[in-house]
Structure formats: C-alpha cells, structure tokens
C-alpha cells in the first residue's frame, strides 16, 4: 500500500535527521583548537569533573555555541520554508524581506550615536538594536502588504527596503567620527562565534515559541499551498494569515540576525533538501523536519568553519554557500526534468 510506504519514508527521514543531529552534536563537542579526549569530555559533561580550563572550554565555549547553531540553524530553515510557501518562490530566503539591512542600519546608528557620546554599547544592547532594526523593516513590509494584492510586490518592497537601509547606513557611516566603524561590513557576514548561555536562553525562548506558532499554522499553510483563492474558500482568513506568516518568519530571521548576523543559504537550501527527503510538502511534517535539517546543516558547516583553518575562522556564510548552492542547483535541475 502506497500509504504505508509513505509513512515508512517519513519515519525513516526523521530518524535519519535525528541520528545525524546526534552524531554532529557529538562531533562538534569533541572538535576544537584544544584537543580534549572523549573521556575528558564525558567527565566534564556528566560528572562536572576536570581541569578548570577544560571545563570552561566545554561548558562556556563549545556547548553554548553548538546549541546556538542548532537553534539558529533550525530557525533559518523554517523561516525560509514559510517564505517560500508564501511567495510560491523556490529561491525566497529569510532575508528576502530586507530584514538584515534594517538590522544593520539600527546597529550602525546606535553604535555611532553612543560612541560619539563616549558610551560603550554592551552586547545585549547590540542584540536588541539588531532585533529592533529587523522588526522595523518587517513593519514596513507589513504596511505595504496591506495595500497590495499581488504578493510578489512584497519581495520587491523587501529588496527596495534593503537597498534604502544600506544606502542610509553607508551615508551615516561616511560621517561617523570613528573611522573604524567602516568595519561594520564585518557584520554582514554572520558568525556563530562568542555565544554565551544567556544568549542561548533568550534565543531558545524566542525560537521555541515561534516554532510552536509555525507548527500550529500547519493547517492554513497547507490550505494556502493550493492557492490563495482556494485557501480562502476553505475558511482561511487570508489577511490574518499573511500578517502571521510575515511576522513569524521575520521574528525567526530577526533572531538569527541579532545573535549571529545574516547567514545566507541555509534558509533557501534546507527546505528543498527536506522536501526532497520527505517527498511531501505537508507543513505538519516539513516544519519539524526543516528545523532538524537546518540544525544538522549548520552544525556541519560551523564545524568546518571553525576547525579546518583554526585559529582562523572561515566566514560561515561562505561555507553554507559552498555546500548549499550545489544542492539547490541539483534539486532545481531534477525538478525541471520531471516537469
């Protein structure tokens, strides 16, 4: 029976993802510039015994970073999935609505303002600034969405907002007193470096709640997959749905941008990989699978980024692009062949 085969496929996919997650998690905990034996690590984690330095390395450097990668990787891919479904566009990604540019703008403005007053910004303030900037961008996109019938207009408005924010940022940076602030471009590259437990707590909460909300939206999303008209006929409140989807995907991407900066390709590639694995697009399955898939993908990429050329850290976006782009191309070609 075909149905049985499909159920088996779903089950296997989740098991595979789970196993991969587990393996990569272990691998990541064991990898780093400072060699620590498996035994040492086990002792540190389960019995809290070991050298101070080693304990710090495992508990304060490796574990928070790995957890952040899992949470943010998952957030990115779910955000990408939501946007791809909504815009019915296979290359839509979490930053298509201009979110990261808005974040960068607010961070730049605040940094310049504070530094000119000889006040230093703490990391908490920077995170909040980035989040606020993202939300402001999202606010503009929402406002546009109310006036517009065709959803492709939203992508255009997102791109435009991205350009406007970048332009304003460059303008402001030109007149900044601190010439080093030009280094703000480093901010555009994204990195998982320097995560702390307090970061992890906050992101776990934000992403966790958003994930649950997204999961609960599975039904209207799958109605929407048939098209807006049919979805409306089936009882979906299209306006609320739009707002909800934009809001959720923006919060997820804003969270990533705030803590790690914009990380490209995960949001675009992982949903495709997940759908190919599951052979279905049903949100009730794809959303959790995307989360796992994104976590796995980012764990793998971060491992490479931080260990291959240690102590130099590769830019995580380059690694995700190197692994993500070929996958996307391959999937696109396969799909074209079928049609």
């Amino acid at each position, binding site marked *: 029976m075909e149905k049985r085969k499909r159920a088996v496929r779903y089950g296997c996919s989740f098991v595979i993802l789970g196993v991969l997650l587990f393996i990569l998690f272990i691998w990541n905990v064991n990898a*780093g*510039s*400072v060699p620590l034996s498996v035994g040492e690590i086990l002792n540190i984690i389960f019995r809290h015994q070991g050298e101070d*330095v080693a304990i*710090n*390395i495992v508990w*304060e*450097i*490796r574990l928070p970073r790995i957890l952040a990668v899992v949470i943010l990787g998952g957030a990115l891919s779910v955000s990408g999935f939501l946007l791809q479904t909504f815009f019915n566009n296979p290359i839509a990604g979490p930053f298509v609505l201009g979110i990261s540019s808005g974040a960068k703008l607010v961070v730049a403005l*605040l*940094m310049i303002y*504070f*530094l000119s007053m*000889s*006040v*230093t*910004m*703490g*990391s*908490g*303030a*920077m995170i*909040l*600034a980035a989040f*606020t900037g993202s*939300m*402001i961008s999202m*606010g503009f996109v929402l*406002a546009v969405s109310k006036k517009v019938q065709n959803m492709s207009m939203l992508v255009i408005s997102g791109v435009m907002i991205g350009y406007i924010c970048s332009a304003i940022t460059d303008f402001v940076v*030109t007149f900044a*007193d*601190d*010439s*080093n*602030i030009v*280094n*703000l471009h*480093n*901010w555009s590259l994204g*990195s998982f*470096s*320097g995560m*702390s437990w307090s970061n992890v707590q906050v992101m776990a909460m934000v992403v966790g709640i958003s994930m649950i909300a997204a999961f609960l939206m599975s039904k209207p999303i799958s109605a929407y997959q048939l098209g807006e008209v049919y979805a409306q006929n089936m009882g979906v409140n299209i306006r609320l749905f739009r707002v909800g989807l934009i809001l959720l995907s923006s919060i997820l991407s804003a969270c990533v941008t705030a803590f790690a900066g914009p990380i490209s390709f995960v949001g675009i590639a992982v949903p495709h990989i997940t759908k190919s694995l599951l052979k279905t697009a049903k949100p009730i399955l794809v959303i959790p699978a995307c989360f796992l898939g994104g976590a796995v993908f980012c764990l793998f990429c971060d491992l490479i980024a931080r260990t291959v050329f*240690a*102590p*130099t*850290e590769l830019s995580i976006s380059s690694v995700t692009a190197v692994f993500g782009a070929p996958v996307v191309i391959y999937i696109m070609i396969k799909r074209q062949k079928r049609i």
Partner: protein
Amino acid sequence: MNKYIKWLLLMAVLIMGLSTGVYGAEKEDSHREIKGLTYDHSMELSYAEEFSVDYYEGGYALITIDQSGEFLVVPEGRKAPEGLDGDITVLQQPVSNIYLVATSAMDLFRAIDGIDSIRLSGTKENGWYIQEAKDAMESGKMIYAGKYNAPDYELILNEGCGLAIESTMIYHNPEVKEKLEQFGIPVLVERSSYESHPLGRTEWMKLYGVLLGREDQAEKVFEEQSSKLEKVLSAENTGKTVAFFYINSTGAVNVRKSGDYVSEMIRLAGGKYVPEDTGSNDNALSTMNMQMEEFYAKAKDADYIIYNSTIDGELTTIDELLSKSELLADFKAVKNGNVWCTGKNLFQETTGLGTMIEDIHTILTEDDASLEELTYMHRLK
C-alpha cells in the same frame, strides 16, 4: 501607523535601559585614593594624555586609561587590597601570556624587550613588520589566536592568557570583550591612537613598562626618541608644506584630519601639513576622504609629498604614483621630484616616531637630490 510608532519608542527605551557599561568622559582626579593603599607619587608624562599612572606604597600602581577603565598592577607575591572598588581590574604580576590585538603596541613591547610576555597575537605572522615579532611567530613562541572579532577562545583559555590588549575596534564587538572577561581574562583597551602628540603614542611604552616591571627600560628608550625630537624642535620652522595622503580604490584621496598625529609630526618636524582645515578636531584619530578635485585645489602647490603606503602597498617610482591619478603630474612636488613614500611598517613602529619626525625634518631641510633612503621613507624615482 500609530501602533508602529509606539513600538519604536518602546524599543528605543529598552535599548537605552540595556546599554551596559556606560563610561562617561570623567573628569580626572589628581590622584586616586584607594582603600588600604597609601599614595606615593604619579608618573611623569611628557606628552601622553590618555593615560596616567599613580604609584602606591608597596609597589602597587594604578593605571587609569581615559574611558577605558582602571587597572591596579599588583606586585608578585602580594595581594590586592580588601574591599577594592569593583570598577578596578586587578592585574597580578607577573603578567604573562598576553593576547595582543592592538598592533601599535607590539613595537612598544619590543622596545622594552617584552615580546616574550606575549603569547597570542591577533595578527598573522605575515601581517607583522617587526622582525622580532615575526621571529617569535615563526619559532612558535607566539601563536595566532584569530581575528579580533572572532578569537579562538579555546586557544586563549588553554594558553592561560593573563591579559588581552585590544584596540578600540573591540567596541564594535562587545560580546568578545564580555566573553574574555567572563573567563577572567582582563581586557585593556588601549587608546594610544587618540593621542594628539605623536610622542604621546610612544610614551605608552611606559604603561607597558609598568605592566611588565620594566619602567626603567621604558624611560631610557623614550628618552632617546624624545631627545631626537628636541633636536628637531630646536631647528627653525622651514615653512615648507607637506601633503600626506593615499588614493583609495574608488579614486578618492584619503587625507589626515588637521590635528591628527601625522599632521602633528609634520608640524614638529618644521613643516606645515596640507590640506589645511580638514575635518573636526574632536577625534584626533581619523582620516577622511576627499574628492580629487578639492585635494588638487588645496595641495597642488605642496612642496613635498609623502605617500602613505601602509594600506595599498609601497610605491617605488613616480610613474606608479601617476597611475593612481593623472592629475598628480601637475603637483609642484611631483614636478620637482620631491615625492617620498612611507614604508609599510610606518604605523606599526610606534617606538620610532621620534625617528620618523627626524626623517621628515631631513626631507624638509636636506636639499640633496641624491638622498633616497631614510629610516622610514624612501624617495620615489
């Protein structure tokens, strides 16, 4: 729209509230009173204004860096006094396994034979122009620990780092500073680049001298440089004008702001920096970009040109210079063959600032066309 405005205001308030680490520009005390310690005397500083050192009985020293914080150097074998103010960071001697990110400090460490205390570097081997640093990295005595915004924490921890010396760029990545401090590694943000007098920068070697307990050596080396300067200062002002700049990839001219330490060096060497009146004075660090047109108008008649090669690479011939911009051919200095170029090591060799001023003075005063090589500059052919 109202909903959004309210939201924005709320965000703004939250941000204000969460700005951690507010350091206002405090008025400096004449000296700091510390409970449990008796004040002895303060360090004499000739040119430096961004830091001060107060000495206390028993060998304690308090380093105060404007806007960066206070550091109490505690001698080996002794402990910090009880009830010490939480704002003061304790640096227990011997300070070892330093993680050095601020490149300008390396030369100062070299001058006081302190490179051995540096274990971790924020710059790779091929990024250093100071031979001793290069040697140390090659031999493995100093290792690369990642860029300032993404350091290898594991390595730093594992090496038992005792102090991180960062430049003000770290303020763009506050989470790095916070993480290092979380591990108990004190972070000293050096501000030598904010010194308005060039020798003020060099005088920072005295601060590092305090850290390493090599104040005498620091004094000696500093004396050498400052006497060189005195010699130059005693000479008359030549009245000649010097332009110091480079042309970036977009074709704009990057000039020093008036009051910046390079323009100061030129002034001290007996010359006058052009273009004049560029930029505001509240931040002595910066350079600024100027359009070629404006630069042409202001600097065309400069007597000398010193091209800043530290960003784009050293030039050897005038043709190479002209390939950056044809207009330069019209400049008086180019026509007279008075174009010099800095070595790439200019900004890293903070100790040699006195020598640099001497070099500039030489350029301005020696009319010998055959003179081509100076310590820090060479003439373009």
